[in-house]
């Protein structure tokens, strides 16, 4: 913020951020994206096949983040493709369904996998979706963490995952946490804005630079990397030539 240019009307810098959505099937990943991108909701959304790629901008006070969103399919048979999508991601949104305990278990697995396999600097947010189905949202302590699981599954559709339990898990893992509803739109923009804010300035690439290029180098020293890529771009001829030489040998 300090380094912001004084002219209020000057276009804010735009940076691209790759974001991947992960989570069990039918928790509402695509619905959250649809709400964020088109401000729309579909009651009977078909399962995603493979993955969908969408973009949407988040406007922060000092800069604009252009999210390049990979909305992955939650069904088990696509699980092996997930690394392809989170490998280069700077942010991940792991979604579970507050009415379905198994989806939180799955969310834990995803967070663990991201910590093992994704870029170390990745920003991870956990979202408990479908809070609109929970009428006790005013009194989150009403439901004990484990107790309600077995009985009266789908008919009532009430809360089956307590906010405390999920929030604690998110905190322990260093993740952002929200309870959302793609249906009502509650907290949807907030999650994406929070993610945008959490992306370290150093990890952001300037406009026009291909997102994949810098991100694919992965690794810990993001600031250093950034310098590298800048240098390559400035001295383009050199870089290309070097690469060619390398190939020829």
């Amino acid at each position, binding site marked *: 913020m300090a380094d912001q240019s004084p002219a209020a009307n000057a276009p804010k810098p735009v940076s691209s951020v790759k974001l991947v959505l992960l989570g069990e099937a039918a928790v509402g990943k695509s619905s959250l994206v649809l709400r964020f991108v088109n401000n729309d909701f579909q009651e009977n959304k*078909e399962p995603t096949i493979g993955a969908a790629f969408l973009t949407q901008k988040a406007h922060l006070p000092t800069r604009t983040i252009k999210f390049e969103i990979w909305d992955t399919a939650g069904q088990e048979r696509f699980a092996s493709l997930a690394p392809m999508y989170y490998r280069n991601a700077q942010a991940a949104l792991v979604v579970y369904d507050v009415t379905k305990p198994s989806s939180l278990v799955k969310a834990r697995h995803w967070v663990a996998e991201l910590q093992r396999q994704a870029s170390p600097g990745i920003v991870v947010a956990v979202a408990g979706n479908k809070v609109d189905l929970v009428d006790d949202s005013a009194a989150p302590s009403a439901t004990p963490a484990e107790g309600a699981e077995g009985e009266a599954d789908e008919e009532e559709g009430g809360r089956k995952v307590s906010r405390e339990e999920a929030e604690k898990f998110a905190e322990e893992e260093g993740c952002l946490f929200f309870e959302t509803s793609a249906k009502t739109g509650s907290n949807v923009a907030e999650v994406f804005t929070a993610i945008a804010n959490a992306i370290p300035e150093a990890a952001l690439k300037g406009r026009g630079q291909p997102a994949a290029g810098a991100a694919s180098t992965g690794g810990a020293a993001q600031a250093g990397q950034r310098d590298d890529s800048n240098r390559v771009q400035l001295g383009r001829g050199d870089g290309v030539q070097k690469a060619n030489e390398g190939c020829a040998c």
Partner: protein
Amino acid sequence: MPEDEDQQQHVAAQRESSPQPPPLPRRPTTIEEEDGLRPPLTPSGSVRNFKGSPRPPLQSKATTAVSQVDVLGLSQDASPSNNQRSRSHSRQPSGRLQSRAGSDDDTASVRSVQTLAPGQSGDIESLLDDVVGAAATETDEGVEERDDAASLDTSPLQNIRDDLDESFSSEFEPVGSFEPDGSNGELLNRQWRAKLKHYLILSSAGKPIYSRHGDDQLISGTIGVVQTIISFYQGAQDTLRGFTAGDARFVILSKGHLHLLAISRLGESEAQLRAQLEALYMQILSTLTLPTMEKMFINRPSTDLRRPLQGTESLISSLADGFTRGSPATLLSALECLRIRKAHRQVIHSTLLKCRSPQLLYGLVVADGRLAAVVRPKKHSLHPGDLHLIFNMLFEADSVRAGGGENWIPLCLPGFNNTGYLYMYVSFIDPETGSPREDIEQPLDGRKRDNEIAVLLISANREAFDEMREMRDKVVDQLQANGSLAHIRRAIANGRSSCTSILNTNKADTKGADTPAPIAHFLYKSRANVQFVMPSAGPLFSSTVSWRRLISLYARLQGALHGKTTHLKVVHVVTGGASALAWTTPTFEVYVVAGPRAGKHVLAKAAMGVVQWARREEERLFVVGGAVF
């Protein structure tokens, strides 16, 4: 699969090598429709000198053939019993009726059919002369020939299935679920049995995988019976392929660890139902690949395949619904293309080639659910069955399109290779439905959803998304710049032509008012291109029921042309509601349908008109070869 293909090739070979099969004894007991009596058309030999030389087919021959299978000896008349004969003819045909001795093929028995004296030659114009000439000699049959479509005005094709109206209206409604106390079991069973079309898929261990109607509880009894019957036959080293009961035809397709069962009361032939089951099977393979599925069953014979197939029920269901509504593409095993000028298509093709990424296997431009252009490697053609699966996923099942954005979809195209996955990049180009890229700014004139143009880029490399996306950007930019998108949009807006406008284009002088077409609808399939064309449905066939009636009529004609033991080149059918003619040659199949009073020569002349038109417009109507690299 391999045996089927062998069989097809075998059958095809047999056909060609026996130009004069033994005569078919007439079977008057089962004839219920007016038969085509005189050869209005010359046979296959005559089309040899078609202007266009045979084009490289989009796929290998074996897969293009409509599947030829044993026809059940025990099967009865495929059509409902309440068909009436519209008129009777006592005159024996002067044309030669042909069949194989001792044939118990039901398609031959359903209607008397005829073939033409083979070996005649002549170009299409002389064919037409024959047709017109034939008309004169037909009048002694007392058939009232009419050259207009007036007789079509009232309830066309009425008797394809008289009770279709009521039963068909509930065909697409779900059967309910059991009450907890099971009190509504009888009602549900009645609802279930009232359905005209069922598809059941189960594992050889008897686990249900898919049912078009009814939940597990409702179908468990049926599954048990089916499973028992199939294994009874298998125990006897026999394979049960199907049977009929009343007006319902049962067809079973056993593939490895899967049994697929179709039950139809829509009068479809065994071969047609089998082709539908093959398509459902391909859909399953498309999700899992063959080796993966086999591994599952080998590791655990009691595998519940519904888990790995989760989320694809809607794809299977939309295929099944499509077959039930009536799909010319499946009936003809062919696909439909966008009609576009040859030069315009060439520009699209060269654009695709110019922008081609080295990672690309197939590239398709699809508009309004029809193929506009294709780019492919020289040694690989596209299987229409594979394309049908893709089109079903993109345009019927709605899961991809509704999401907006671009998609990267792993799928197996079993006709191409049933052992592995390909990766399909899908992008719909339409700002209205939210093309995700802000940087594509092309104001499309049309605003409707079906104006959508889809770019599909298929790669064998699962990491190739960025390359495919880059290619898409280039392709779209250039198509926009060179005017191709505008051409495509105009073609979409024009829609399919009407019969009248198509047949009037054959007139030498285009001055004066169009004469109303004597036919109501037609299908024309180019065999070499594995593609078909049809006119707009028009008001006559815009309702689900009238469309189903039309498709049922086509199915009967198609069944008669392709019965395994028949060698028919021409089939003529008259029902109370319609008269229709189908004609097949090595290069095309044409089907025309008119009102019940349209005579044979009218139909034949219209069929010739369609053939002439299709021949003249071939490169507009069909993607011939595509862009090959």
